[in-house]
């Protein structure tokens, strides 16, 4: 009944990630080509060596032709999929299962999104014809429900709550400032963040992730083949994906201080990976910081902090790049923006760099040197109470 997992059966042998940002100079096809070029080079293979492809994009193209056409693929299978903000991670998950099953030897997962061409602020979704009754709230508004609910439940003063949210944005911008691929490569002062114009609820502009274009990709194979391609593969320890019943907006029992979907997918992933104390075992985590209260709540849902304590841990610097458990050491969605299809693979790319000691010295995290071997990536898509959630764990060693 429960997920079995495929721990240590699939390895990542190559990855690539384009710079994220307002890429006025690049179209969807360019971004896909750039990410593919870097990824095949990283694995030391040709595009023609790859047996099957999974393309994640929410709205930048439909069907596998979105990828096969620019890459001029030689009649290969390409699946195009979408799963809200977890789209990139979904492409990766499905590619892993494909090689684990033995159906293919070498598969590529690639995610892309071109958001800036629309000319609109924020995300623009395509929806089926509706009855007009969906509340037309923006994404920041949907996520801003978390802040007063959390503060109310745990007795956090609204001003202190604002400091906590500000600290999260500050940390992620600080991390992104030294990452050449990030959209925003500048530290932002606490005062600037705190004083930024309000968008929704307590959330100011700096509490929201940016809107950007980008692409990232990974090549996977079965573990026994990994060393044909690289001396330093990453091993897939866990892949968990959950779609919830969208209970929050209709269930008075939901209190907007947690993402039940994340709790379930985290439990599942830790079981698959054999993790019992994530805060102590993980070297790093890349989590879905679409808005600052999201990251706060995720620290508890992912088991990095006890319920009602994450706000104190945030203020104490526990999740800073040089803290006990670095969270979003690459700068997160906050610094990278959120090209939907690409974000999950961009997170994985940070694990690829950090766990293989390939991050530049100025931002290599100490936990890896201290012997921690596991990295976590997490995405959620939707809104509090009605979302999909992905939790994946990769490691730089096979388990004993």
């Amino acid at each position: 009944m429960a997920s079995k997992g495929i721990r240590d059966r699939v390895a990542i042998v190559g990855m690539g990630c384009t710079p994220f940002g307002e890429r006025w100079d690049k179209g969807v096809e360019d971004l896909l080509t750039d990410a593919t070029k870097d990824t095949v080079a990283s694995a030391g293979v040709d595009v023609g060596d790859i047996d099957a492809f999974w393309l994640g994009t929410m709205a930048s193209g439909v069907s596998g032709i979105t990828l096969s056409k620019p890459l001029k693929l030689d009649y290969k299978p390409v699946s195009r999929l979408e799963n809200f903000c977890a789209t990139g991670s979904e492409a990766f998950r499905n590619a892993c299962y494909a090689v684990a099953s033995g159906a293919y030897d070498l598969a590529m997962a690639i995610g892309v999104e071109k958001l800036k061409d629309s000319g609109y602020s924020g995300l623009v979704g395509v929806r089926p014809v509706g009855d007009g009754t969906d509340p037309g709230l923006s994404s920041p508004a949907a996520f801003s429900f978390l802040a007063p609910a959390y503060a109310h439940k745990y007795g956090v003063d609204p001003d202190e709550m604002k400091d906590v949210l500000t600290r999260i944005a500050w940390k992620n911008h600080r991390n992104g400032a030294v990452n050449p691929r990030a959209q925003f490569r500048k530290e932002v002062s606490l005062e600037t963040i705190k004083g930024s114009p309000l968008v929704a609820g307590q959330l100011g502009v700096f509490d929201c992730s940016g809107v950007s274009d980008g692409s990232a990709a990974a090549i996977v194979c079965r573990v026994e083949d990994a060393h044909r391609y690289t001396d330093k593969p990453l091993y897939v320890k866990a892949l968990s994906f959950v779609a919830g019943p969208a209970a929050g907006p209709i269930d008075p029992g939901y209190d907007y201080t947690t993402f039940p979907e994340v709790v379930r997918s985290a439990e599942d992933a830790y079981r698959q990976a054999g993790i019992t104390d994530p805060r102590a075992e993980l070297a790093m985590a890349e989590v879905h910081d679409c808005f600052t209260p999201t990251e706060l709540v995720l620290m508890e849902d992912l088991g990095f902090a006890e319920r009602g304590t994450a706000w104190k841990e945030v203020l104490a610097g526990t999740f800073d790049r040089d803290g006990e458990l670095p969270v979003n050491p690459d700068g997160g969605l906050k610094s990278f923006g959120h090209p939907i299809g690409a974000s999950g693979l961009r997170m994985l790319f940070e694990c690829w760099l950090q766990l293989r000691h390939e991050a530049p010295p100025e931002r290599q995290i100490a936990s890896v040197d201290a012997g921690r071997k596991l990295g976590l990536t997490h995405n959620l898509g939707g809104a509090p109470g009605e979302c999909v959630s992905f939790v994946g764990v990769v490691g730089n060693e096979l388990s004993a």
Partner: protein
Amino acid sequence: MTAGIVAWGTYLPYWRLDRKAIGLALGSPAGRGTRTVASYDEDTTTMAVEAGRRARGGAAPADLFVSTPAPPYLDKTNATAVHAALGLPQSCTAFDLNGSVRSGWAALYAAALAGARRPALAIVSELRTGLAGGPDERDGGDGAAAFLFAPEGAAAEVMGGASASEEFLDRWRVPGDVDSHIWEERFGEDVYVPLAQAAFTDALKEARVSADALDHLVVAGLHTRAVKAVAGRLGVRPEALAPDLTTTVGNLGAAQAGVKLADVLERATPGQVIAVLSVADGADAVVLRTTAALAAAQAAAGPSVAAQAAGGRTDLPYATFLTWRGQLHREPPRRPDPERPGAPVTHRAELWKYGFNASRCLVCGFRHLPPTRVCLSCHAIDQMEAERLADVEGTVATFTIDRLAFSLSPPVIGVVVDFDGGGRYRCEMTDADPDAVRIGMRVGMTFRRIYTAQGVHNYFWKAKPIEGTN
């Protein structure tokens, strides 16, 4: 067994425009007092629904007559949306009587006739527009009144009525225009006074009462000069003249007679005689007598006209008013235009979208908004019954102020509402001060126009603070 009015309800919007605000903005005196203003998410259909919801009592209507000079749709019947939002049975008629100001009286007249046979509901809804700085903008008002007539149980029985009709040019409007034209006022006065006297005299004759025996007199009409002149010449005791409400709510046009009558009914005592006289392209009069059932009907009526007139927000900026009325073209947000709702989807969702019906699980009792076929709590499939929650109150579980979402009147207030007796829904809150929203606030539901896209009005329900409880 007494036929007549068994229940009534009125609706005056939350917003008021202080006439001083017009004067300040345009640099010319605009008089004193306030007028009622339909909010950006209201139109004559939504106000008709709100008034209709308050006209409760006795049997469900078998006939529905909705009237307005400002219909949201032409060709398409507007009364069907009111019918759906009131949750009336399919067999109930739903007719529009639209266009002229006098059609408001026609709806009351039709319901009185039909109501002698079976329950009939008349709703008159009005939204007075005019050009910036003009007298119609300044003196008009928005609101609605609903009267339920039935063959028995009347709180006010119809004793007699009469009309006088004549063709002349007093006030007119070309379809599509926001402003009316008026012939020289003294001409209208000259024509109206004898017509009004004729209708009034005939009505009294049929009712077999004399003018000096009237306990209350309502005179309504957009022709202020004629109304004033008529009221003084009928031989009615001056103290019987009903308050004209124009300094607080404004002149409600087609709905003025109904709202003023409701105000009288709310203050009257059993056995009193009331005459209502309306001047609009002729004159119409009716004489009513209150019965012993009046007290029960007064108790069942929603918020009184007096209470509504005394409430509301008076700090509406004139620029906001002009924006709502489409007379100030503002820069839109850099977001895609909203999509028009699809006709088939809307039709399938009628019980939800218009009737605000939840589904309650017959197995475990869990309430679902919107209605679903599979129970969230026990997963039973197709074991649901529809349950109307439009009149059920709730509590704000959490909220947000959305400054990004599209609205004619930003910011949008988003609330999560937990309903008394179960059920949760996330929706917009309207008629509220963003700074006053808090967890635990008590709210009720109100029928609103969410937006208009490609000519399709998207109606749905929003939460609204319950006055006096927060």
